[in-house]
């Protein structure tokens, strides 16, 4: 299914006021933008999106329009700069909310309320809006005020504790992992709410705790604790069902291959490829139980063997014999991965200050539609005038005055 050129976009005409910042919220707005919605990010240089202040920066020079961490979640969107501390800027935001079909925010409990944009206030001017709100731990409960990032929620959810080696401290996943769990759930529920609005005309309020979505990913482990009083622990790369199962060194520096033997047939084939058919008869390794009992020894033998090969050659060799194996790709190698290329996993867009760089596409390909990428992430306030004049019908003089009094920054 090669993505077609059919540009019928499902959210053509859908209007979104995106008050979100950092990761989870903006990524939800992005899927709507990718499929044709008009998404307007409300930002401020007085309170910039933290991602705008995080590396990597173009030429390693910090600047609010130079972070490539910020750009990913925000392509295909517009940006208006509004200093919401100013009541006249809040008037503009209010008009934007009245214009929108969907709005989202992720500032943490209480912030939108202080500006007069609680759901209760918003429905007075736009009764059928879909309003989504996401925060670390939800809008109720004793720890609702906690401020942090996706890595905090991954740690609080137990995801750090179960990533690493049993004899070493937990290392946790790379990046703000909870973000990448939470936005899946939030995208799903927002898309469902927009469908409900399409069918019934009714909007609603959605409140999502990023921590709680992570816990659903760990459901079986939580049940195991409640039912069997067992606490999951770090296992390195070992697996309860597969052995051998690990990451082994290949030729060169920091080249690795992941190998997972999933059944006895695969184990026999693997022994043949290794040139050790005797292992499949050796009592130490013949059965799964035996291999588990001697796993460290077995892994060291396998590592001796894998070291002699190029990782890509070995992946091809093992996969051609039906063994699950994959090169541990480094970020630079994703660029050359032929499978991801087939998927159209990224598009390159030209950013006014950063220049051309990649934006990931959603992990689904569709037989009858494709996302539409029309521009890189916006500069802070790049569309302030466009939004004020084209969307909200302000005059040139009014915009000039608003700028003079400092509402537009």
């Amino acid at each position, binding site marked *: 299914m090669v993505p077609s050129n059919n540009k019928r976009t*499902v959210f053509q005409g859908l209007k979104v006021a995106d008050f979100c910042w950092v990761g989870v919220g903006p990524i939800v707005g992005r899927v709507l933008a990718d499929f044709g919605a008009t998404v307007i990010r409300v930002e401020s240089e007085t309170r910039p999106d933290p991602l705008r202040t995080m590396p990597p920066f173009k030429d390693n020079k910090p600047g609010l329009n130079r972070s490539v961490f910020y750009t990913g979640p925000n392509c295909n969107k517009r940006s208006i700069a509004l200093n919401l501390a100013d009541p006249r800027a809040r008037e503009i935001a209010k008009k934007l909310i009245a214009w929108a079909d969907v709005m989202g925010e992720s500032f943490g409990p209480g912030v939108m309320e202080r500006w007069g944009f609680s759901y209760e206030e918003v429905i007075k001017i736009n009764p059928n809006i879909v309003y989504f709100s996401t925060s670390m731990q939800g809008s109720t*409960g004793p720890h609702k005020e906690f401020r*942090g990032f996706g890595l905090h929620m991954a740690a609080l959810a*137990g995801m750090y504790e179960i990533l690493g*080696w049993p004899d070493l401290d937990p290392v946790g996943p790379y990046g703000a992992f909870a973000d990448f769990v939470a936005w899946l759930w939030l995208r799903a529920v927002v898309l469902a709410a927009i469908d409900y609005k399409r069918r019934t005309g009714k909007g609603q309020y959605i409140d999502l705790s990023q921590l709680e*979505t992570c816990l659903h990913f760990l459901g*079986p482990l939580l*049940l195991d604790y409640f039912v069997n009083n067992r606490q999951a622990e770090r296992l390195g790369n070992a697996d*309860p069902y597969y052995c051998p199962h690990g990451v082994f060194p290949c030729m060169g520096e920091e080249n690795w291959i992941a190998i997972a033997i999933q059944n006895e047939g695969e184990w026999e084939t693997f022994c043949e490829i290794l040139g050790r058919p005797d292992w499949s008869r050796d009592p130490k390794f013949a059965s799964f139980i035996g291999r588990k009992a001697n796993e460290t020894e077995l892994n060291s033998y396998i590592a001796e063997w894998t070291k002699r090969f190029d990782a890509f050659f070995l992946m091809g060799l093992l996969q051609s014999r039906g063994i699950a194996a*994959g090169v541990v790709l480094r970020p630079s190698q994703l660029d050359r991965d032929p499978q991801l290329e087939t998927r159209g996993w990224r598009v390159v867009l030209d950013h006014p200050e950063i220049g051309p760089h990649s934006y990931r596409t959603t992990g689904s390909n569709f037989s009858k539609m494709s996302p539409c990428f029309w521009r890189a992430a916006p500069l802070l306030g790049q569309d302030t005038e466009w939004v004020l004049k084209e969307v909200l019908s302000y005059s040139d003089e009014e915009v000039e005055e608003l700028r003079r009094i400092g509402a537009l920054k």
Partner: protein
Amino acid sequence: MLDLTDEKGLLAARILADLGAEVIKIEKPGGDEARRIGPFFEDEAHPERSLFWFAFCMNKKSITLDITKREGRDILRRLSQRADFLFESFPPGYMKSLGLGYEELSALNKRLIYVSISPFGQWGPYREFKAPDLVVWALSGFLFLCGNPARPPVRFSFPLAYLMASGEAAIGALLALHFRSITGEGQWVDVSAQHVCTWPTMDALAFWEILGKDQIRAGSDRWRTMPRGEIRMRLVYPCRDGHVLLYIWGGKMCEASNLALHRWMEEEGEDLSPLKGTGWPLLDPAEIEPSNYEKIVDLASHFLGKFTKKELYQQAIMRGIMLVPISTIGDVCRNEHLEQRGFWHDVHHEELGATIRYPGRWASLSETPLERWERAPLIGEHNNEIYLEELRMSPEELSYLLKLGVI
């Protein structure tokens, strides 16, 4: 919604079932393979006691059906004529080989949204490659970034890659539903676990593109390329009874946290003189010297080591410090905030004579609240309901199909 997935896709239809969809899990006679995945209720390995199954099949119905048999394929065709969605996670090409591919089923029902979940997608050079969790993480670029420098890259000790793919499948299904609302047509949604799992590598790809640098695993630390050099950002700190995660950085959000930590250290009489001239507690990341950052985190480490996880988290909440405990699964299950929010939901399993605590509502919705708590189905629990009532089969037909081994 017809759910023909195995562990690679069970969560997709579970998400949509929570949102109100009527999901029929189609199991092979004798029960789905995913029922063999532990842990098990009271540690007794049995297909009706899999906690993995319980967690990801809640709110679904179950029928048994052998789609490798001709009669079974006919029944699946009848079911898919009445369905809005079909989810499957067989190896690419398998459904087509049974005459149940997208082309065949959409010819019978042009509104059908057909969602395929696979390791790499339905097309491309890796389409036939095998890839359980570890291999997906490897080829997504994420695995390379996780682990201690002196050891190989390391994965989560619980398979999450296909849960990511399942979440994406739910999203893809809903996007296709919007397309159908406009056009009246269903389509084929092709989800690749590898493709989805490139997302968590987020800024690492940017580091390569913009600065020509490959990020590499650094234990629980993270390298950050800044104007004054490479800063080794520390995140995990040992404390008296475990570890905590503390985020020390600059910018508005982080400065408030730094100031709060600074004040607490002062109150406790911590000697802060080593931090003179480092810029602490107001850090401008663009200006900070890597050696100064080291001094700050060393002192923080010394300070945090005096307390327990609980003491530290209490202070963090009270004072606004960006610190959380590195929770064990037990800590999660005893988390006071979750308890007070009423997050957990007890579900009764009559057959087991037990009530099991589940993770509860994952979003609050004002108009269409998530309020379904039906325990995962038993093997073929809804055979009569679906075959007799929905498809209007006769009891004779049903018993014939049973004898044939089709159901």
